[in-house]
């Protein structure tokens, strides 16, 4: 008798566990709905992070969903879904085709939406033109970093060495060639007329490993995000030679010259924004434009931004689309110089 009971208990334990797992973490907000001019949204909303849980896209998506629901700006529950694969390319294909008319599915993305579409290898057939850009929400910048005891004091030192003996300078970054870190790293070289194919670029799996390579003496210069490098500057382990912003940053990196100040006439913003599907209805676009504009003003959003160490930068749908056009030109120009364009 006891045996059968424990057997049963064991089986139910496993099954119960399974069942427990499948239930999602969607918050159940009230079903009451404000009656606006249109009747959008009628259904629950999904924001997709086209990556695994925990990355920048995922955190942004969750921050939006949380702020919108907590502040009751949007009362319909907003669910965050992770659709990883191909650096965002897998979901991009679905988003641009199957979900093109689905007003209830949005996506968070950053510069790879441009890069993946324009580069020859690992190409995503679909780009930002196959979406409806709704708003830019945050920004970060690239930084050119050396170890504290490096002989390089300025960006010019690095560029001079790259000109004279490129085989002695190892540039590293946290992502594959033709992706964001690589582009940030070679912008100064490109603008100084250096043959980009002579520049040695070593790619690591993520910014953390790139920093490790720098600290361990396995890379001479790395390109990475300005926001994550600040703590190493504070501890005195590294020096930042330049940042890719148009104006000087605040805080730890306040003394660091921008690309422009270092004589490089270019800037590169690592923005994050939210996109609707290609054929999003006008009602839905208007609804989200209004809600997103209101959201970035709330204290809740500001504290989310601060908590995650982001910088707030808001562009509405129109400005964002124009901005994307400009950014796309920069990306194409760089990829062309690298002979990596499609």
């Amino acid at each position, binding site marked *: 008798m006891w045996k059968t009971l424990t057997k049963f208990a064991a*089986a139910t334990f496993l099954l119960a566990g399974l069942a427990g*797992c499948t239930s999602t973490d969607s918050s159940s907000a009230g079903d009451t709905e404000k009656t606006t001019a249109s009747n959008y949204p009628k259904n629950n909303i999904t924001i997709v992070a086209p990556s*695994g849980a925990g990355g920048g896209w995922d955190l942004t998506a969750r921050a939006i969903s*949380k702020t919108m629901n907590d502040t009751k700006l949007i009362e319909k529950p907003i669910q965050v879904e*992770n659709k990883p694969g191909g650096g965002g390319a*897998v979901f991009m294909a679905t988003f641009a085709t199957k979900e093109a008319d689905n007003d209830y599915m949005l996506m968070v993305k950053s510069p790879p939406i441009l890069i993946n579409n324009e580069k020859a290898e690992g190409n995503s057939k679909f780009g930002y033109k196959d979406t409806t850009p709704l708003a830019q929400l945050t920004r970060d910048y690239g930084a050119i970093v050396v170890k504290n005891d490096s002989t390089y004091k300025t960006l010019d030192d690095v560029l001079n060495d790259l000109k004279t003996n490129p085989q002695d300078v190892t540039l590293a970054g946290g992502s594959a060639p033709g992706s964001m870190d690589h582009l940030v790293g070679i912008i100064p070289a490109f603008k100084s007329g250096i043959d980009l194919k002579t520049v040695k670029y070593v790619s690591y799996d993520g910014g953390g490993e790139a920093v*490790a390579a720098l600290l361990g003496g396995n*890379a001479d210069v790395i390109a990475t995000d300005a926001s994550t490098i600040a703590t190493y500057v504070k501890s005195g382990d590294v020096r930042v030679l330049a940042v890719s912003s148009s104006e000087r940053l605040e805080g730890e990196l306040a003394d660091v010259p921008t690309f422009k100040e270092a004589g490089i006439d270019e800037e590169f913003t690592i923005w994050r924004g939210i996109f609707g599907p290609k054929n999003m209805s006008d009602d839905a676009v208007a609804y989200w434009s209004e809600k997103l504009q209101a959201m970035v003003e709330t204290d809740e959003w500001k504290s989310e931004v601060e908590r995650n160490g982001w910088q707030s930068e808001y562009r509405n749908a129109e400005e964002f689309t124009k901005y994307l056009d400009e950014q796309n030109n920069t990306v194409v120009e760089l990829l062309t110089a690298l002979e990596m364009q499609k």
Partner: protein
Amino acid sequence: MSTLQFLADGFAVAFQWQNLLFAFVGVIIGTAVGVLPGIGPMSGVALLIPVTATLTSGLPTEAAAASSIILLAGVYYGAMYGGSTTSILLNTPGESSSVVTTLDGYQMAKQGRAGSALSIAAIGSFCAGIIALLGLVLLAKPLSSVALKFGPAEYFSLMLLGLAAVSGLAGRSITKALIMTVLGLMLGTVGIDAVSGIERFTFGQPMLFSGIEFLTIAVGLFALGEVFKTILEKSDDDGQIAKINRILPTKQDLKDSAVPIARGSFLGFFIGVLPGAGATLASFFSYITEKKFSKTPEKFGKGHIAGVAGPESANNAASGGAMIPLLTLGIPGSGTTAILMGALIMYNIQPGPLLFDEHPEVAWGLIASMFIGNLMLLVLNMPLVRIFAKVIETPKKYLLPIIIAISFFGVYAVQYTTFDLYLLLACGLLGYLFAKNDYPVAPLVLALVLGPMIENNMRRALTISNGDFSIFMTKPLSLLFLIVAVSWLLIPLFMKMRGKNVIINEEE
């Protein structure tokens, strides 16, 4: 000494009632996360971040950060405890780090020794957890600088050593093991090449851009392969499974496990410290080492307790070791530690060189709570063994559907694509065919993990040296690994040539 003082302060933080509670909740959830395949430590931790943020919202930032990282870390190492359960009972690895546990764990379960296997896994994990923590307290600073010295050349040579040791996973024929190794290396080349950014063998399919998921292959080959075998070779052995005689390991089991646990703990800890190497590699290395040093290598793969004790200790120790680069350098060594780091950053606490100076309460509170958490896990897991061990007595007709469901659910929860489900099915069939024809699948799985790492690190090293291969010989650590790898392969051959009666492999 000041370290002791800091540790005592840490315990003061960890013993606050809410932090005890948080550690307890963390390890319970972690155990569940580990037991249930699919929801791995990474997604488990990620999903709990918003929950802990809400729970700790009333506390001051520093205390809130300490409390939530205590809970999240509990999930992380708790999952390492639980991860062995399905490997042992159902031949279904829930996490990549417990793949190697299936080799002997499942055999033990089949022989009615599931209780011993499960409890030795728990005991081993506990010892490893404590050893890794002591290492963390005493060696954090010096080890972090060693980890930094590990460049591409050193990684390449270390991984090559792992591959050279693959013969340790061979069954009866070394040739077949080599065929499987090459197959694994080939599968590892699929996807966008991380060094050049070029697509390889993707046929333009976006789902292949990021390569073939290791867990899909492992679950397919091991778990579904076994399911297909049971269905296709339907025999009347239903109910013939040996009765479970005991829950606790015998004295002999404990004696056989003591050394593997100690060795696995040290090995796992040091591999864990290296960013990017991780728990999976640690468990494989431990298994291979145990087999190499064992007086009875022929027993491995047939239910040898050392084959469970070693790897299970190693993967737990590795998760402790991985805390060193995370806390002292701010460099996450694995996906899960990257998420833990994200959680700390959310509280405006940046892990890195300044953490121990700026936020000692968080750093030492976490370390102290891990001592307590490990103890909780041991107390929690031993009674659970009794319940879990009964699973093996479930009749096949109920058990098989459960395994299939868990496998599909697990793979989908990691990959979110139906493509991987087809791949899973295909691997299941392959796994059956391989097993039927005596092709060992473990070398394939190991090669799939090691292949891309070997390749990427070799090419990084060569980029740095401008194509000069001497970089692998001029770096002392790298040279050491290469020498060990070569002697690993050559010494048995050499001794055989000298006429010594050495078993290279049980080749027929």
